[in-house]
């Protein structure tokens, strides 16, 4: 067996060793991978490079192909087209047990007939690791996921959160080059999910391992991942950092899929230096910053995130002199949604459209709060707007 997995040195030193490319070096290369089930093209020509040490998230609605892509990385599905290179070696057709890749399953898939210890040791025994080393590694893993004292329990004697930890320890025990996580937190309740997100990130940083997580929860992806690949209908729609994805979505679909957004359809009217004036049907003329990639002359959409919209009773005074410095929209409060940390207002614009504004509740007592049907001025700067092809 030429298996490199039962290494006993720590992950930190392993990062410099040969099976682990150094952090930042390319680890996984997906080249034009496609998979068809019957007539349904689940994954349609995906190409992607992932570097060692990355925490990468595949995000998308259900049926977008993200799980199929992950299963091809694990070896449960063979791609119909394309190559999957792990450390330079094509593993596209390798069987699951031949890959230095481990997966944490959505419902954990713990072996119900084995104890916590035996579940974690399963992969180590398969790799032919000596008994003593297995015991050491299992103890290390148990400590890592804080399951001390539960080693002899069977999975059905554990809580959901504990099962999740066993699944994680089992997947990490072989120190895979690549850890795949299929909706790892979906079965946990909200509070536990949030604390587990933090623990997963911390673990990933400490072990210097490469994680690929599949999730439909954009907040989860944004919180944990250093890079996100958004998938739609089998294709990668955008690969970017969470911030870029949120602030500079590449398409209207991504803008709407990730977070809340106000969208106004319109056409480019005129150019003023680095500013464009776009005439919209629902919000009148809006001044926007010229996008980095030039947009065509045709139909456009102006996108503004709700938290970029400011509300005031009379409008901004300071920069009122410069007409192009600010977009001012008059309207009436149509709906108030108090969410604790923020309040979302829906403003019915005089120009006809509806604008959402999210305002932080920075003071506990707000004697000056807006009320329904109150007249307000909504404003935002040209740089807060994103211009998208319609």
């Amino acid at each position, binding site marked *: 067996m030429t*298996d490199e*997995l039962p290494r006993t040195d720590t992950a930190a030193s392993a990062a410099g060793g040969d099976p682990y490319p150094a952090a930042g070096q390319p680890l996984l290369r997906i080249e034009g991978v496609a998979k068809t089930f019957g007539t349904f093209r689940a994954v349609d020509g995906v190409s992607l490079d992932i570097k060692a040490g990355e925490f990468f998230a595949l995000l998308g609605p259900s049926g977008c192909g993200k799980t199929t892509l992950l299963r091809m990385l*694990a*070896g*449960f599905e063979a791609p119909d087209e394309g190559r999957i290179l792990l450390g330079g070696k094509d593993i596209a057709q390798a*069987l*699951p*047990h031949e890959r230095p*890749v*481990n*997966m944490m*399953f*959505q*419902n954990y*898939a*713990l*072996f*119900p*007939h084995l104890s916590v210890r035996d579940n974690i040791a*399963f*992969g180590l025994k*398969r*790799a032919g690791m000596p008994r003593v080393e297995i015991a050491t590694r299992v103890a290390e893993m148990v400590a890592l996921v804080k399951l001390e004292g539960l080693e002899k329990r069977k999975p*059905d004697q554990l809580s959901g959160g504990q099962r999740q930890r066993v699944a994680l320890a*089992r*997947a990490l025990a*072989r120190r895979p080059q690549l850890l795949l996580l299929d909706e790892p937190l979906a079965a946990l309740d909200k509070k536990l999910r949030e604390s587990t997100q933090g623990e997963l990130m911390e673990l990933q940083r400490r072990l210097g391992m490469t994680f690929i997580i599949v999730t439909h929860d954009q907040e989860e992806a944004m919180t944990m991942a250093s890079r996100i690949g958004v998938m739609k209908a089998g294709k990668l729609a955008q690969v970017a950092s969470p911030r870029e994805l949120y602030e500079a979505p590449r398409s209207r679909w991504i803008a709407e899929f990730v977070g809340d957004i106000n969208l106004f359809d319109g056409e480019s009217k005129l150019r003023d230096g680095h500013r464009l004036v776009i005439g919209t049907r629902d919000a009148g003329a809006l001044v926007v910053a010229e996008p980095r990639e030039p947009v065509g002359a045709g139909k456009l959409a102006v996108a503004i995130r709700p938290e970029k919209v400011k509300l005031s009773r009379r409008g901004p005074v300071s920069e009122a002199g410069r007409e192009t410095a600010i977009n001012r929209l008059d309207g009436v409060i149509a709906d108030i949604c108090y969410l604790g940390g923020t309040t979302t207002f829906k403003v019915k614009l005089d120009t006809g459209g509806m604008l959402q504004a999210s305002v932080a509740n920075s003071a506990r007592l707000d004697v000056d709060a807006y009320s329904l049907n109150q007249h307000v001025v909504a404003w935002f700067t040209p740089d807060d707007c994103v211009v998208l092809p319609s």
Partner: protein
Amino acid sequence: MSSRRIFARPARFAAIAPYVWMVLFFLVPFAFVLKISLSQTAIAQPPYAPVFDLTAGWDALRGAFAALSADNFKLLVSDDIYVFAYMRSLTVAVTATALLLLIGYPIAYGMARLPKRWQAVAMVLVIVPFWTSFLIRIYAWINILQHDGLLNQILLALHLVSQPVVWLSTDTAMYIGIVYSYLPFMILPLYATLAKMEPALEEAAADLGAPPWQVFWLVIFPLSLPGVGAGVLLCFIPIVGEFVIPDLLAGSNALMIGQTLWLEFFTNKDWPVASAAAIVLLMVLLVPLLLYERLQKRQLEHGR
């Protein structure tokens, strides 16, 4: 309040119903058989003595009890015929059950991995033979296995043999008949446990480095043990007492205990010895039955 009273009575009845069933259809007949097994054969109607005659008073009853003896059981142990019959029954049952498990397991596993709608079809195909009388199906096998039967015709046509093979009245024919008849009883419990097993478990095992044979031995098989246990007992217990199949398909040189029972009962008209043989058979079967019950209890405790 009133709703509780409505439900209370049927619930209580439902709780005691199994016990009533056990007493009426197991314990009472068992007491009869036990009593007959302790009496002596006689040329009479019924053909054993003494018979309890409740009208004859207390002394007669005591006399009848005093006349009971364990002679029949001693005969069973001392006479080779019975010992051989028990041994043959157990050997046949063990061999046939092993064959059933070997043949039934792959079928059940294949069924459990079919797409959902095909599973229902496969299930019907397994059960379909039950729609024809059991005896007719065994006679059909006689037809297939006889000298100029279908099997020999095929073998001859394929030039696999140069002259017809003797199948009938051999152990091979008997095993064919038993495996054929009991296969559904092996497949169904196996299928039930395999179908509800999460497919992700196999993937997890493979993902952790287990090649296919290890996936089977370390995950699938251990998790299917409840089904294996149920299938093995559902086949083993009735096969030990099997009468029709060995009688019709096997040779007459070695008898199973069911056939011996039949001989004692109907040919020799020795009800007491037949009853004693039945009691011993029951004791032999009680061991696997108790094992089965313990298994079921464990399953219930595990809540699955």
